[in-house]
């Protein structure tokens, strides 16, 4: 865990509100692994105040480049969107527990929307997992994933690309062929993946999101409902990746 001032190599729009950011890193990259995240300061002033958690999408330790994929959705990410080559970012990382890389198991990886971000580094490290992906309408980054995939299933909500619907539908059909499933995306999707895997006794890892303060385990604000009744998990240090059996989805997420 380090603080590093990272300069920006490039920051390109890849779809509506979606950007690919590449930064230089000397120290953070040394420990970076799939599923971990960076905690990035959006402003030098006090508004916005807090760092923003963004997953490591790809780490190229040879070039010393970390690639991030983010969606502009509020104050902080809007500021990220305005940055260009040569600008610097104050970053803490790598933070959290990433995905366990189970190379010998037949794996499926499922991602929804911007939730695909932490999955690229994962897919690179697995042995050509089957990939299930869903988007609302505009599709991005799938070519990067196809390179590392076995079978590839693409869904859009409006049917404009791939099949119409959600990737969970295809995963449900094929679930019996997998020994492990990795997932990141909307809570609704994660909750269904958990249910599906547990019903079929398939090992399952979910990357969770919760609003963060410190990002390092000190403030206790990133609480996430755990399967044990009497305490919460901390997304920032116990996660963001959890074995599906460790976490619980409460009704709040079903909205």
């Amino acid at each position, binding site marked *: 865990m380090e603080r590093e001032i990272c300069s920006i190599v490039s920051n390109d729009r890849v779809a509506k509100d979606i950007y690919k950011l590449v930064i230089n890193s000397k120290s953070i990259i040394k420990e970076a692994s799939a599923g971990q995240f960076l905690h990035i300061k959006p402003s030098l002033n006090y508004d916005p105040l807090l760092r923003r958690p963004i997953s490591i999408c790809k780490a190229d330790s040879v070039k010393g480049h970390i690639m991030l994929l983010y969606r502009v959705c509020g104050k902080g990410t809007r500021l990220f969107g305005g940055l260009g080559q040569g600008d610097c970012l104050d970053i803490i990382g790598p933070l959290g527990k990433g995905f366990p890389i189970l190379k010998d198991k037949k794996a499926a990886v499922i991602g929804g929307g911007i939730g695909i971000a932490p999955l690229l580094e994962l897919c690179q490290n697995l042995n050509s997992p089957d990939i299930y992906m869903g988007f609302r309408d505009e599709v991005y980054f799938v070519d990067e994933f196809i390179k590392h995939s076995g079978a590839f299933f693409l869904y859009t909500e409006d049917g404009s690309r791939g099949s119409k619907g959600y990737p969970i539908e295809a995963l449900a059909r094929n679930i019996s062929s997998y020994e492990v499933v990795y997932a990141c995306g909307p809570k609704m999707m994660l909750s269904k993946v958990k249910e599906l895997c547990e019903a079929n006794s398939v090992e399952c890892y979910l990357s969770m999101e919760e609003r963060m303060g*410190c990002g*390092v385990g000190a*403030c206790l604000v*990133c609480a996430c409902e755990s399967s044990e009744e*009497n*305490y*919460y998990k901390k997304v920032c240090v116990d996660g963001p990746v959890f074995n599906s059996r460790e976490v619980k989805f409460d009704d709040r997420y079903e909205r």
Partner: protein
Amino acid sequence: MIDMSVDIGGLRLKNPVLVSSGTFGFGREYSNFYDLNSLGGIAVKGITLKPRKGNKPPRIAETAAGILNSVGLENPGLYGFMEKELPFLKRYKVPIIANISGNTIEEYSIMAQELCNSVDAIELNVSCPNVKEGGIAFGTKPELIYQVTNAVKKRIGIPLIVKLSPNVTDISEMALAAEGAGADCISLINTMIGMKMDIENRKPYFDNVVAGLSGPAVKPIALRMVWQAAEKVNIPIIGMGGISTWRDAIEFIMAGAAAISIGTANFYNPYAPIEVLDGIRNYMEYSGLNKIEEIKINRGVKNYE
């Protein structure tokens, strides 16, 4: 020769920079960034007698230059703390301040007594509802502050810090009550009560409706309260509330704080305490001051109330 050490009611700190309860866990997390022994002291996460699960998420919202938190005192309980967390901190030489919360005066007393051989000072978080008084916060009535301070003081032989709530009409009245009851030091401010609406879902954003506001947004209020309390009491004051830079720290010390504490700033800048410390030292060097107390301004003849 610059002497950075300060006294906070019988406890000598090697420098005036503390970290605030609830923003620094039990120290482990930030030990990855720097040597905890560089700090003047550590106020650990607030402890209650029994373990507490804390509030339902969401527990944080960002506001303009501040945050609202609704952690709800999640903690492993008195004995969990002593068994599982304290040993780690004991490996350091940094003074440990145990921050305790109770529902009754009895609870405060038990905790203080159990802890007083293992920590360097006790900090009473009086922003808790007094169950016996129908849930009114201890920290909003001078009588209640007096009673709880007095009860705890009698049981312990280590310095007692009373942490005041800013959600009051007259902070100096509260400070005087603590001093009168035997507090060795006061710390202020705790979080201000704030709120946020979840517009989309047409309900309060936090399950608990209200939440605690902290960060740079509250700094002007915190500084004013330190100034007002320092006008009235003779015991040392630990100033906090939005301190992020050495300039903020100097403002608080000028206003009368004997030491200062970094809270929310740890979240956006894990090195904040170290940077503030270096800044204070540089400021003193530049200004030719040798002791922290010399930073305090002379209030002169003016009636500043």
